[in-house]
């Protein structure tokens, strides 16, 4: 005989998040600095708000890595160029701003207590938010970056190609 547990409601829940970034771009060196970062999350009923903030900030740090630093590069011979943390850059304490986090709490009708999954929103927003902010800064110069990560080299290359 097999025993199992089926929760009262077992469909997925979806949280929602909006990310907004203010950045400065050094148009000579291609360096991007995050000046302000605001996140609005709807995690439904927050069971433990501190854990929610931790998940959001941690996810955002990962997303900043995707946007600005991380790349699995290979040379012409197929040798991986990012095999140590000196070559594969991750954002550290000095690269991750303290984001301002706003919470909407729209209870999910699908979960028992109105809570929603909160883990993914943080990591998904930053690439789009940062790329849009960088491109907004570069717009007067007629340049658009369409590839991640947004490295200083890519920004300078785009500016030189004008």
């Amino acid at each position, binding site marked *: 005989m097999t025993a199992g547990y089926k929760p009262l409601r077992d469909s997925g829940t979806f949280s929602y998040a909006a990310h907004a970034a203010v950045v400065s771009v050094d148009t*000579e*060196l*291609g*360096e991007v600095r995050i000046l302000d970062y605001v996140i609005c999350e709807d995690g439904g009923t927050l069971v433990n708000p501190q854990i929610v903030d931790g998940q959001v900030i941690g996810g955002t740090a990962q997303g900043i890595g995707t946007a600005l*630093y991380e790349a699995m590069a290979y040379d012409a011979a197929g040798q991986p160029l990012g095999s*140590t943390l*000196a070559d594969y*850059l991750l*954002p*550290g304490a*000095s*690269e991750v701003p303290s984001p301002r986090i706003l919470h909407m709490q729209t209870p999910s009708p699908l979960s028992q207590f109105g809570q929603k999954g909160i883990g993914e929103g943080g990591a998904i927003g930053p690439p789009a938010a940062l790329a849009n902010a960088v491109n907004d800064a570069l717009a007067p110069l007629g340049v658009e970056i369409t590839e991640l990560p947004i*490295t*200083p*080299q890519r920004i*300078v*290359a785009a500016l*030189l190609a004008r």
Partner: protein
Amino acid sequence: MKAAAFDLVRPASLADAIAALAAEPDARPLAGGQSLGPMLNLRLAQPRLLVQVAHLPELAGIAVDADGVTIGAGVTHAAIADGRVPDIGSGVLARIAEGIAYRAVRNRGTIGGSLCHADPAADWVCTLPALGASVTLQGPQGVRELPVADFVQGAFRTVLLPGEIMRAVRVPRLVEDAGWGYEKACRKPGDFAHAMAAVLIGGGMRRAVIGARGTRPLLLEGDAVSIEHAEAALHDLDAVHRHMQLVLLRRALAKAQA
């Protein structure tokens, strides 16, 4: 990864260290280990013998006179950043040291070790030639002194002979009206620079050094200290890299002339 097997000796004197290095062709001196350590772990370096040198009393001294300072090769970046080496003017050495990697590296990494490792993007490798510094080397054949500009020959390549150890770095005092500019571009603080330039102007002398170009630093002197000369000299770099180097040279020049 872990390092391949090696032997480690801790000699009591510089003479013993030189003898240990000279006796084993596959030996490397180990100072702060902030570059050699990772290289051992990645097995990029697999010496049979490591000879510790940072603790040697002959490499520890700091001396000052009217013309400049002499810094033992085993003095750490942190000691220089903390002002334990007398100032040569404008706090230049402390400011350079403060910008090297991050504190944990500065606590153990040494000025001599950094020069002998000769990473093209290392701060001392780029700035000390601009400051007109020289180094004292001691080996089985005796003692010799030469400018830092001649000491570094290429990427991770120096004039050190087998058994030879750097004993000290001599940095002349800045002249009264000297202007100094040092600029580098890194992806993150603590990361190696992908472009860097140092400029010293004063006493009728002009000197500029461009580092992080994958080989020995480019030294420009006198009238050659100009964007035009640098641009011509950096023709082998790709356009993006060259552009960044020239931006930093321009900024360093502006600071030195301010």
